[in-house]
């Protein structure tokens, strides 16, 4: 038996959450007396990046150097993943929860008739079947689910399995999935992507702004604080609805769900839909001029005051 871990590449780098999935897969392999293999599709990641997979506990990497896979084509990727599972005689697929990963895994689940658990938080309990703990109701609750099918797919939630990398390396084996013309029926015509910016779902530190900042022209303080911390930026839903900030920064129940070590909310009231998307953050700081803002109830640290006075002080303290 073996386990395949699907690796996602963004901006020429393997995503941090994919390294977490590697660590998860390696531990699961130990628990189940099997071997874990990582799967990299396309030529976007450099050899050094791929070698780093070894640092997280997996020593064998299948690499499909097929340039048609440089972009995340959902149909083609799902067929490549199925072929990797078959080649390795694998019964378990592990991946880091993401919009691309989900879109692929769902198709793989049908092809392999696999039980699928999204937002997995811990290693499974194997004492009576195969039970996993997952986040449900957008972080408002957890659920224990038994996966009853022989084949299984686990989507690991970010932050659920952090580990310290070792110096171990990985051997790369080339892999050539058979893909048909029809796998590329969807034509990707253009990609608009910010480069060099920290990705919100991956970030360990997030600074987020709400309607309290009054307009896009005032975002400088948020960006400066984020820069001083090396944090990603987020926002509340009205802020992206009003086009003050790009849509991929929208945090909450209907936006990006984040689980960073630190989430700083500035001028955000703390509506339940926003809280749902941030509740698994390790530490939450709230800055709001209204002492009654509901966000303070979900915070670890709070400052009641005007963001435009407080943020410059924080930026200065960080730089000093």
């Amino acid at each position, binding site marked *: 038996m073996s386990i395949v871990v699907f690796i996602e590449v*963004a901006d020429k780098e393997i995503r941090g959450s994919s390294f977490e999935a590697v660590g998860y897969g390696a531990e699961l392999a130990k628990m189940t007396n099997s071997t874990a293999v990582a799967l990299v599709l396309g030529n976007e990641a450099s050899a050094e990046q791929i070698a780093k997979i070894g640092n997280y506990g997996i020593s064998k990497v299948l690499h499909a150097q097929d340039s048609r896979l440089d*972009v*995340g084509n*959902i149909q083609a990727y*799902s067929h490549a993943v199925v072929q990797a599972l078959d080649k390795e005689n694998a019964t378990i697929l592990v991946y880091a929860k993401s*919009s691309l990963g*989900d*879109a*692929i895994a*769902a*198709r793989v*689940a*049908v*092809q392999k008739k696999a*039980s*699928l658990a*999204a937002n997995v938080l811990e290693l499974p309990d194997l004492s009576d079947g195969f039970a996993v703990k997952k986040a449900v*109701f*957008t*972080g*408002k*609750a*957890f*659920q*224990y689910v*038994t*996966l*009853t*099918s022989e084949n299984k797919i686990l989507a690991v939630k970010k932050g659920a399995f952090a580990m310290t990398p070792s110096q171990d390396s990985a051997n790369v084996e080339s892999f050539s999935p058979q893909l048909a013309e029809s796998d590329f*029926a*969807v*034509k990707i*015509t253009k*990609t*608009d*992507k*910010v480069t060099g910016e920290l*990705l*919100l779902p991956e970030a360990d*530190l997030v600074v987020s702004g709400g309607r309290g900042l009054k307009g896009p022209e005032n975002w400088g303080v948020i960006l400066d604080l984020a820069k001083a911390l090396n944090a990603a930026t987020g926002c509340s839903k009205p802020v992206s*609805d009003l086009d003050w900030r790009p*849509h*991929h920064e929208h945090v909450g*129940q*209907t936006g990006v*769900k984040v689980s960073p070590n*630190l989430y700083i909310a500035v001028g955000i009231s703390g509506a339940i*839909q926003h809280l749902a998307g941030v509740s698994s953050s390790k*530490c939450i*700081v709230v800055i709001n001029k209204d002492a009654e803002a509901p966000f303070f109830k*979900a915070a*670890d*640290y*709070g*400052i009641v005051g005007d963001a435009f006075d*407080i943020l410059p*002080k*924080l930026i*200065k*303290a960080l730089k000093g």
Partner: protein
Amino acid sequence: MKILVCITCVPDTTSKISFINDNAELNKAGLQYIIGPYDDYALARAVELKEQIPGTTVTALNVGLAVNDQVIRKALAIGADDAIRIDAEPTDSYFVANQIAEIAKQNGYDLILMGRESTDYNGGQVHGMVGQMLNIPSLSPVMKLEISGNVATLAREIEGGKEYMEANLPLVLGCQEPIAEWKIPNMKGIMSSRTKPLLVISPTNLETLTKSELYELPAARSGCKFIAADQAETLIDLLRNEAKVI
């Protein structure tokens, strides 16, 4: 063009979640059910396409029990022409996808729209599963959709940006904002929704691949430590040395 919009019925986004029966079951008492917020975007876009493209019909589909009928009527009030309810508890993504795929095989839709994920179980799997079961492309999360003849032009959100693409129909799409704005039903819609057909049929394939055991609520945070605004800079020290997060 024939459009199928799959809707989940989920607790209102402001709901407090609790469990009964030794934490084995969701406590539905006092919960208000709504059209899944992401499905609501899909429905709104479907109704816009119907207004743009003559001869387009929109069917709303839900897998669920009779309590959902009032939520399904709202989809009809927003502008779906008719509705189908598969009379079964939606036990897991695989089960739900099988029901949708079966209806789609019988009726042949050009476009199957739904939300990118449900806000209760957050699986985000059903659209991909349906696409695979029907052997047609599935894409998600789609934030822009235009149809011209048999060709769809769309944008998918990726982490940190957007990916633009083109594909021929039929397609299965998981949708999110800003594909359209949520629509509020008007009086005429509400009146007509009462007489629009809502067909109730039995499920076909009853197979599930997961079994729910128990629920748990997250531990409450220990409370908020307040820092005076005129000493705001001490926060940095606390984050470094007490919380140890920076």
